[in-house]
């Protein structure tokens, strides 16, 4: 298993550390030829405008779109979720790969950043994820930092996590996963395990 983390700017180091801890080989992805032999890709949190500009400037848009088109797992956290979705109300490069409309900074500025429980269909206890565990509602520690908000999700999108108010904060469409919070800032690695389990057989 060869995992990559887009390392243009932001919280990529945490993802690399956790994915390695879970047994994957992991590399930083900064240039198009870093995609060679890659099985899955994480687009981390960070500043979405910065990540978008650098991705355009260094020719990474097409490789990411091709990679996702080959049914390989791609996971966006926070800014990464913005990058994979359809962005409402802002003019900046995004990929529009997943059928989700998203709004930036929609919970407020940094003073409004918060921790809250996410109700998730991922299994309750940390351990190797298997599809048989789906449907078992658990709680995940959600860290929301200047987080974006999912304003609309298409019919083919599966919801994997909500706030207790009902808002969608984690979702999957086929090989694409988005979380608007930061599992990589917690000791709970269930989303990382789940992501590694998304590899097609």
């Amino acid at each position: 298993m060869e995992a990559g983390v887009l390392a243009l700017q932001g919280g990529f180091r945490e993802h690399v550390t956790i994915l390695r801890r879970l047994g994957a080989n992991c590399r930083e992805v900064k240039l198009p030829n870093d995609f060679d032999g890659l099985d899955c890709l994480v687009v981390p949190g960070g500043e979405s405008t910065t990540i978008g500009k650098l991705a355009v400037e260094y020719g990474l848009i097409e490789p990411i779109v091709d990679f996702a088109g080959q049914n390989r797992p791609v996971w966006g956290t926070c800014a990464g979720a913005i990058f994979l979705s359809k962005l409402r109300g802002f003019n900046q490069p995004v990929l529009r790969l997943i059928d989700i409309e998203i709004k930036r900074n929609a919970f407020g500025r940094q003073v409004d950043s918060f921790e809250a429980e996410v109700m998730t269909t991922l299994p309750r206890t940390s351990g190797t994820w298997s599809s048989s565990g789906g449907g078992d509602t658990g709680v995940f520690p959600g860290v929301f930092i200047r987080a974006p908000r999912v304003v609309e999700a298409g019919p083919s999108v599966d919801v994997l996590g909500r706030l207790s108010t009902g808002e969608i904060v984690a979702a999957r469409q086929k090989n694409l996963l988005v979380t608007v919070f930061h599992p990589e800032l917690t000791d709970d690695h269930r989303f990382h395990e789940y992501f590694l389990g998304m590899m097609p057989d």
Partner: protein
Amino acid sequence: MDKNKGTITVKRGFAEMLKGGVIMDVVTPDQAVIAEKSGACAVMALERVPADIRADGGVARMSDPGMIKEIIQSVTIPVMAKCRIGHFVEAQVLQSLGVDYVDESEVLTPADEEHHVDKHQFTVPFVCGCRNLGEALRRVGEGAAMIRTKGEAGTGDVVEAVRHARSVLGEIRRLRDMPSEELMSYSKEIRAPYDLVVSVHETGCLPVVNFAAGGLATPADAALMMQIGVDGVFVGSGIFKSGDPASRAKAIVEATTHYNNPEIVAKVSEGLGEPMVGRQVKDIPVAELMADRGW
């Protein structure tokens, strides 16, 4: 729903999301827009860049709240602003304006020569400057969620930022390899909280993100600091005191991402026009050094 705001996790976590990025000093909304378009991961809103503060002399204070609000409204990226060391009311004002990070900064004239702000009392996170590990851990002990080198702001001379980064990182390496029975004595020697000394000994790194600041002026300066081992960079006077700020800003952003790739650093460094006029730190009278403010 229970939302916990202002926790250590969201304060420190936000700094994690700034890593690998460039935070740029701006004095007008137009400059903030140029910074955002160039790929800055945040801007520092202030009335005068350090080079001008240095040239003007006098007392440097928090910027006009109206000007900070205009900058907040002009960009979507995070906005930071500076308060004077120990001036907790300026910090309260900045928090009320909705700034995303407060820099308790030696670039402004200190309001208190003994006490820094008790940063645990705030919802907004703080970044503070340091010259060595003891100073870094004292600030973390007071609640700083992010650390930066002090360097020597407004000079365009990177030598002090290098000195401070090497000092912090070298001391971390020594502490990591220290026998545990020496930790209390070391904590006394560097005047740092014992529990934080133990934490750095065990993890081999600071508990918060560590940026370089103070004197960076070129893409190669940014890449140098990244290779030395900081997590990202602040560029103050270096951008908007140069001949072509937009090109230089973009080049420094790209050099910070691709800091390990000399071909890219070379390419982005081409034809940037005049860098800011520098001033060697060793020519500055001791009384005018900003890095010696705070303890």
